[in-house]
């Protein structure tokens, strides 16, 4: 009976058994397959997930309406379970007076964190929120925007994401 290594079960012939060419082929292919898996780890190590999209828009939002941002690319689906840092930003100059703007980051529709801006004197101060998301693969990251004031606003938005930790 062939022996096998303790971690990956690589097969090798025992000293008392006839060795056929298959023994070489089996071990070589097993090592080859493990190296391929290792290459996957190598690629992720040097290329942790990250994403950014900027200035998508505009999206028209009415004053007082906390609105999910729906522009192309503003929805990010978590590719691998882990801890991510997510940044969202959104803003524009409304058609009426405005005293506050807020952007929030959501995970599967649940608000996780956000940032308000005081826009006293109708001063555009674009809110930018950045924080952690502990996620599983398939979780959907979106953002929403709200402003206090009058009229409507055409907002331009962006989302950035980077993976800190892999838990899968």
């Amino acid at each position: 009976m062939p022996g096998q290594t303790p971690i990956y079960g690589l097969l090798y012939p025992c000293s008392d058994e006839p060795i056929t060419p298959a023994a070489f082929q089996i071990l070589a292919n097993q090592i080859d397959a493990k190296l391929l898996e290792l290459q996957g780890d190598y690629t992720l190590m040097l290329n942790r997930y990250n994403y950014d999209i900027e200035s998508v828009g505009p999206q028209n939002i009415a004053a007082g309406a906390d609105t999910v941002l729906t522009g192309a690319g503003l929805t990010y689906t978590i590719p691998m379970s882990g801890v991510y840092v997510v940044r969202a930003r959104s803003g524009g100059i409304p058609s009426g007076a405005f005293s506050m703007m807020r952007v929030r980051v959501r995970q599967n529709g649940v608000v996780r964190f956000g940032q308000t801006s005081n826009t006293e004197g109708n001063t555009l101060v674009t809110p930018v929120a950045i924080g952690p998301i502990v996620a599983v693969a398939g979780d959907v990251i979106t953002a929403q925007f709200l402003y206090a004031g009058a009229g409507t606003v055409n907002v331009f938005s962006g989302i950035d994401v980077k993976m800190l930790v892999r838990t899968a």
Partner: protein
Amino acid sequence: MPSNTVNFSLPYPNGSDAPCDFAQQWCDFTDAINNVMAFFQAGIDRAIPVIPAALLRTSISRSIPDRNPIPFDEVVLDTAGMTDLDADPYRITIPRTGRYTVSAFISKQTNGVLTPSEIGLRAENELTLDFHVNASILDLGVAVTYYVPASTPALSLVSGDRVQIAVNSGTFVSQTIDSAWLAVIWHSDTEVPA
């Protein structure tokens, strides 16, 4: 003639090879594995336990012309030769093309302008003036210290790019910057959304 594995073309003896050729053929096999592992090790050396990162800081209050880069006087961290305050006190130089986290912070006094204005902090690529890291707060004109942090998780930067920070007070006059710091930290070689 030896056969080769599918993925890494590792050569191994097959049924047509003579047993007395085993030693050389098996050495070829182990050498091939060693080469693959050496390649992987070079990648490991780049990523753990130290990554390219630099953090510059200043706590000296200075008058800086509006929208001009802020100079630093302290290298808090530089793991990859990204800074040289003697040659350039303003910037962090990117050592290798990739995706970087860029974070910054300033503290300053009010513009003194009664009309509310925006204080913008942006980290920009000095060569192109492209920026993706910016944040702003409201200056109400009241006499408090204005603190502005900014960060972006992952920004594409090319080897040789130089990152600096500047404040835009909206007044076109010099601003008193009390303190600041700028950090550039490697995250990934490429943008990988999924």
